[in-house]
């Protein structure tokens, strides 16, 4: 009996030490789609076999919240693959260590921080897209929408799912882009109309498309990567890129200030904008931070980049609290679910 107690205590002691950081290991916070993590890490390890990546993957809102919560006691070494708007917020909190990675000159100007050395560098862009389930649409006698404005038509009542901008990066990208496309007043008016047709607001940005793919609702406002993936999985989807233009954000990376493993962190950031990395991103994403690498992605148009709006990231980051406040006030109090 005593020996069991002892071994228990030993076990507890062992557990206590389990979280300590080691050289050759990086704790990487990310919002990269889960299915891509292994592939990205393997490609990185092909070049740097001695650096082990410990992923903390969650949706954009969760990772951002975690990073901010740990502001005074950062647990992450690197942020690799988080929305640029979130990295901008981290920058305003002084949480990023500026670093000019090797090959920075190959990155398009819009895809890196304006400061020198930059606090963050971009990887690729993801953009808004609408997933339209043709089977369910036919059952309900609906035509696929072609523009954002179409979504406010009364025939789509209760047929649309979109992500909640307070928890989803994709949701915020949608809302902030509508305010930029339509102007502030018209933008809110558009969302008032859209709200009438919404069946549910989800917490994550990929869920609306997956729900549309599964026929839970005919229309899901989501992003192009997820739409293409679901279509590839065999879902009866038509991917719509609204004519007014697409809101977008980029996946970007930076070093967390205060990391105790800066050498490895720099190597990872170097690699994150290398050609080899870009080729990995290109498997799912059509718009890359580096010119001349991108090949066409199945189910996505070749001219996707030209459909993106001119996004004012600083405005989007600095007005985030205000916009979310207004959005929550207007739409989050819906107490009865719509059928």
């Amino acid at each position, binding site marked *: 009996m005593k020996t069991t107690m002892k071994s228990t205590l030993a076990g507890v002691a062992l557990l206590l030490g389990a*979280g300590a950081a080691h050289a050759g290991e990086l704790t990487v916070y990310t919002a990269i789609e889960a299915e891509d993590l292994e592939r990205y890490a393997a490609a990185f390890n092909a070049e740097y076999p001695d650096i082990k990546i410990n992923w903390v993957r969650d949706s954009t809102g969760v990772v951002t919240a975690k990073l901010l919560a740990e502001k005074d006691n950062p647990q992450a070494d690197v942020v690799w693959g988080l929305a640029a708007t979130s990295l901008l917020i981290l920058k*305003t909190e002084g949480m990023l260590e500026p670093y000019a990675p090797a090959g920075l000159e190959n990155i398009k100007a819009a895809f890196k921080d304006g400061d020198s050395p930059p606090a963050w560098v971009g990887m690729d862009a993801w953009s808004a897209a609408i997933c339209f389930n043709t089977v369910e649409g036919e059952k309900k006698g609906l035509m696929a929408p072609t523009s954002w404005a179409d979504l406010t038509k009364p025939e789509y009542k209760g047929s649309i799912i979109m992500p909640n901008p307070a928890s989803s990066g994709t949701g915020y990208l949608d809302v902030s882009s509508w305010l930029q496309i339509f102007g502030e007043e018209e933008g809110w008016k558009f969302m008032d109309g859209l709200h009438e047709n919404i069946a549910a607001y989800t917490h994550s940005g990929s*869920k609306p498309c997956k729900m549309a793919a599964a*026929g*839970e609702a005919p229309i899901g406002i989501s992003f192009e990567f997820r739409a293409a993936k679901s279509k590839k999985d065999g879902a009866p989807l038509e991917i719509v890129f609204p004519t007014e233009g697409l809101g977008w954000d980029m996946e970007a990376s930076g070093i967390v200030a205060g990391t105790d493993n800066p050498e490895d962190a720099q190597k990872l950031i170097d690699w994150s904008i290398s050609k080899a990395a870009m080729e990995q991103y290109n498997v799912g994403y059509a718009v890359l931070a580096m010119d001349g690498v991108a090949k066409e992605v199945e189910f996505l148009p070749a001219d996707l980049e030209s459909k993106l709006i001119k996004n004012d990231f600083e405005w989007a980051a600095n*007005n985030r609290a205000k916009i979310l406040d207004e959005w929550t006030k207007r739409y989050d109090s819906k107490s009865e679910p719509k059928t």
Partner: protein
Amino acid sequence: MAATDAVLPPGRPLRMKLDRDAWTKRAVMIVIGLYLVAALALPLYTMMSKSFTTYRFDLTRYEFQVDDGAGNWGPVVSAQALNDQLGVFAADDLRASSDSRLAPTKLFPDFSFRSPVKYRIRGLGNAPFLVGLDLKRGGDWVELDSNTFRRVNFRPVTARGLGNYITYFSSPTLVGSIANSLTIAVISTIVTIGVAFGVAYALSRSAMPFKGFFRLAMVLPILVPSLLPGIALIYLFGNQGFLKDWLFGASIYGPLGIVIGSVFFTLPHALIIISTALSISDQRHYEAAESLRASGWRTFWTVTVPGARYGLISAAFVVFTLVITDFGLPKVVGGQYNVLAVDIYKQVIGQQNFEMGAVVSVVLLIPAIFAFVVDRMVTRRQVSLLSARSVPYQPKANRRADTIAFLWCALTAIFVIGILATCQFAALVKFWPYDLTLSLKNYAFNRMDGGGWASYGNSLTLASATAIAGAVIVFAGAYMVEKTEGFAAGRNLFHFLAMLPMAVPGLVLGLAYIFFFNDPSNPLNSIYGTMAILVICTVTHFYTVAHLTALTALKQMDREFEPVAASLHQPFHKLFFRVTLPVCLPAVLDIFIYLFVNAMTTVSAVVFLYSAHTQLASVAVLNMDDAGDVAPAAAMGMMIFYTNVAARLIHAAVSRGLLAKTQAWRVR
């Protein structure tokens, strides 16, 4: 006379002499008490104090200078003075959250970003402001042209006060959740108690067949995370659900789904309590009723129900607390129906507003503590109905009543097993609803959110560590409290600390842990992000029931053992390991399995605390569902179910083996 008047001098006050054993016992009790203070009381205190941390824009701490466009600077003027003059910002505008920004250009009515006018700004006492995205602090003047001054934003500073509570109660969205939470909790409680009472009544008062099977089936929900029924309900009644028509157009997303799912996951808890209450019934009462020619209906209301009333009340409050604090189910199937538990999650995870999360936590604590207090009062008033002369009730066969009882139980069992079967089916279908071929592709967890198969391994580690460490800590604590003489204040305090976790919702505990442990000035800070914090959190979260189990077992032991051992000069630890522990072994094993199963299924307490190395299967269910990977979420949920079934079976086998060895004395 004089002799009798003489008063004896007061003697030395009597004091119990403490021997080494007594000191050891007190020391162990204090150590475990300190554990509870560090793992429960202090984090909760930190969270409470966090809810009073407010953010606001302090205009007195910013100063400006404006030039005339020709390089001549005007007087230094504070933002406060400008606002007093112009009144552009009301008090409401100055209240902020941690992420708020306020643009000062509004303080300058003739501001134009095209004008050649230059501005200087400084923040006194480290007041922060942004120029574009660069954070500035400090009293040095920052000189900016008009176009850049447009990009200046104040950042809020912290203060203490009731501001968060004012914001909370003036926001209809947030306040609405209180009514929503209470509504679903009350409705779920009424339905669950009704169903559970019917089943318990059928099991104890009828002569229907298959009682053993029903008993087994009804406790199955305890083995799965609470959000699993939500997933099943979506497959059954969602817009593509195969039983969608049963709802006549109503939507499963919202209160309906929450209530049905809540009935599923709270049923075993209610059933266990009500069954216990009904099982202590006295045949003689029924005989008396019969000889007085009371109708069956009257007997039911005058004998059965009053006998079980404390059990019913207790079960009602347990169910109420479980539903109002549950977060997984409303998250999955709640649609746009906001409830308190999900609000905490949304405030913290979505809006990064930790202070508001703390406020909602405090609000959620109120009904939970209220239910807890009422339950304790009721339990205290419960008197034993069973005396030495009682005759256990023997149900007689009654064809009509037995058929009704059987149907009631059968329907409930179909509901329970149907939910689980739906999840298993969902997990195996390739692409619902368009490709119904079976495949194992949903078990490729490594391609999904939530940490993949490693999270399943982590959950096993957590469950085992929690069960072992928890059983040791809880039983030792209960033993010291029960067998220590004197020291009443300490024992009462310990008892209070041990009962407290029952009233603290998991989500609140988890949030309190972030505030308390993720503070660099906390010496325990190093456990943040490790498996250890998950173990500590889980042991603490489920401490109360385990503690009560241990106490019940210890109270059954004769108090004479200790004096006898002492008179034989045997140290208490010898008695503990030779007698007490072997006798109480069944209870210790029950605590072990209770902690194991709950550590496998818990989501709420650990959802804020897991890290890269320590993702968990139950959280993976949540995260996969969140990302829209509903089928893999169901698959992982069922993995947890099978693991818990296996653990239960092993527990049963080990118990039987050990009992044969250690409990032989019970058989005469």
